[in-house]
């Protein structure tokens, strides 16, 4: 219910129609929809991207690739980019990068996706534990560049994501727990057969 409300609000604001995929899906039940294959990656190297991969599995998506730190080439074969935003000192250390270069890299990745007209879903599904100074830098730099936001309630206690969504007219869906993302993925990535039928 709550989710539908947010989508409705977003729709009411007259957004969400800038993407071709959105326009196609207006007649169907879902306002926002995206295409597969999906590239799932992390900006900030937290474990959130792995969680998103498990969620994609649970949602039964037919075509997705998980790359903890994707390359520009990885983006080129995708039709949707899911970027999970969240900084982990351990994760950045494992990747051998610091927060500044990670943000620079995230911007580059997003710019490349935009060039190729690949829509970006930004996720924060780890909640308030990923709302430290490093994570916030990533969120502030990249969430405004996304086309759709999926955010865990507890990450929005200070309203940061509401603000980003409103100011940048980005539709947003809030979830209580990470597993609540499963039905959302099922809805925004319609089963291929259905998509084919619609197109045919």
């Amino acid at each position, binding site marked *: 219910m709550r989710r539908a409300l947010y989508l409705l609000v977003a729709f009411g604001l007259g957004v969400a129609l800038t993407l071709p995929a959105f326009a196609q899906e207006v007649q169907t039940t879902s306002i926002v929809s995206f295409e597969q294959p999906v590239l799932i990656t992390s900006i900030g190297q*937290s*474990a*959130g991207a*792995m*969680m998103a*991969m*498990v*969620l994609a599995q649970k949602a039964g998506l037919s075509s997705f690739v998980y790359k903890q730190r994707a390359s520009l080439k990885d983006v080129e074969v995708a039709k949707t980019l899911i970027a999970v935003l969240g900084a*982990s000192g*351990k*994760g950045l*250390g*494992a990747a*051998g990068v610091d927060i500044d270069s990670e943000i620079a890299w995230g911007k580059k990745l997003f710019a490349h996706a935009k060039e190729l007209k690949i829509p970006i879903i930004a996720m924060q599904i*780890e*909640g308030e*534990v990923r709302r430290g100074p490093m994570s916030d830098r990533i969120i502030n730099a990249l969430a405004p560049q996304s086309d759709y936001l999926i955010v865990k309630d*507890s990450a929005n206690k200070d309203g940061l994501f509401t603000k980003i969504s409103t100011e940048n007219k980005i539709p947003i869906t809030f979830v209580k*727990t*990470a*597993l609540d993302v499963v039905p959302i993925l099922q809805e925004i990535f319609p089963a291929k057969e259905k998509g084919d039928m619609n197109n045919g």
Partner: protein
Amino acid sequence: MARRKSPLYSLGGWLLLFLLLLGVTFPGLGLGPTSHDVRPGYGVSELRWLSDYLPALKGTPGDTPVYVMKGKKEGGVFLLLGGTHPDEIAGIMAAILAVERGNVSQGTVFVIPHANNSASRHNNGHWGHPELQWLEITTSFGERRHFHYGDRLTQPEDQVPDPKEFVQYPSGEKFPGYEARNLNRNYPGKPDGTLTQQVCFAILQLVEKERVDVVMDMHESGISSRMAYMLVCHPRALQIGAMAAMELEQDGISIKLETARKEFHGLSYRELGDRTGVYAFLMETPNPGQEPNIDHPDIIHDPRAPLNHRVYVQLKTIFALLENYNLVSPPERAIRVSFPFPLEKLDTEELGAFLR
């Protein structure tokens, strides 16, 4: 000419003889492993010692009991480590509860409640609370049971003096000297190394020899530490960790998921995971006793992190990890464990209600 012994000399001789006898008769007063009040239940099929995996440990303060819980059905193997840092008591109590009340229906579970048994002997006040030496828990029979509240590090008298700088073996990574006595910096260990290295080596031997599939190393942090409620996964184990974390969230347990950092050496999940095929995890619950700023911390009843809740979170995490491990593993390597009471009860009732 017979020399007359002075009275002092003979007194000294007797004293020496007495001390020698004492040492021989009560090895606890000399070298030897500290013993603990652990009461194995129906689930335990065999008692082993860590020295079974490295005979050099036998009779040393580093030796420690290994409880083997074999299920009726063949399956995978799980190693549960408590007391890597014996001041992190939720892990020790969770391991003891597993030994006393746990059951295994498939696979084999090895439980080591006091992984660093030397460190468990007494608390030197690493976190500023040397008054914490014993944990008193009253059982449902009204019996008061006592459990050692140990130290973070191997007792200094049990090992060669700390070097100025501890060079981790074999990575060469450098740490402050006292870390030479930190079990969770000494993996993979060394068969002829320091006591701490030997304990690490013996645990690695167990993991290899018993073909362990999953290992959980239970820890605690301060209650305001960013590490509280953190589940650290070896990179290969991250997917299982992510699956478990999201399920735990449904049960109201919010944990922070992390993956091991490559350049941090000597840690259990890192070295055991790299050197064997094991899915390696480390879990941290918050312990008021590790908070230097709390005066007289209540390590059992602090409402912010009562011990029964911490033990519940440790065990619930293990259950979630094993369930998801079973999902991604061949059925013949499945591991199934249970308790004769709903785990959730642990979250609301005192720990003593569940111990033997």
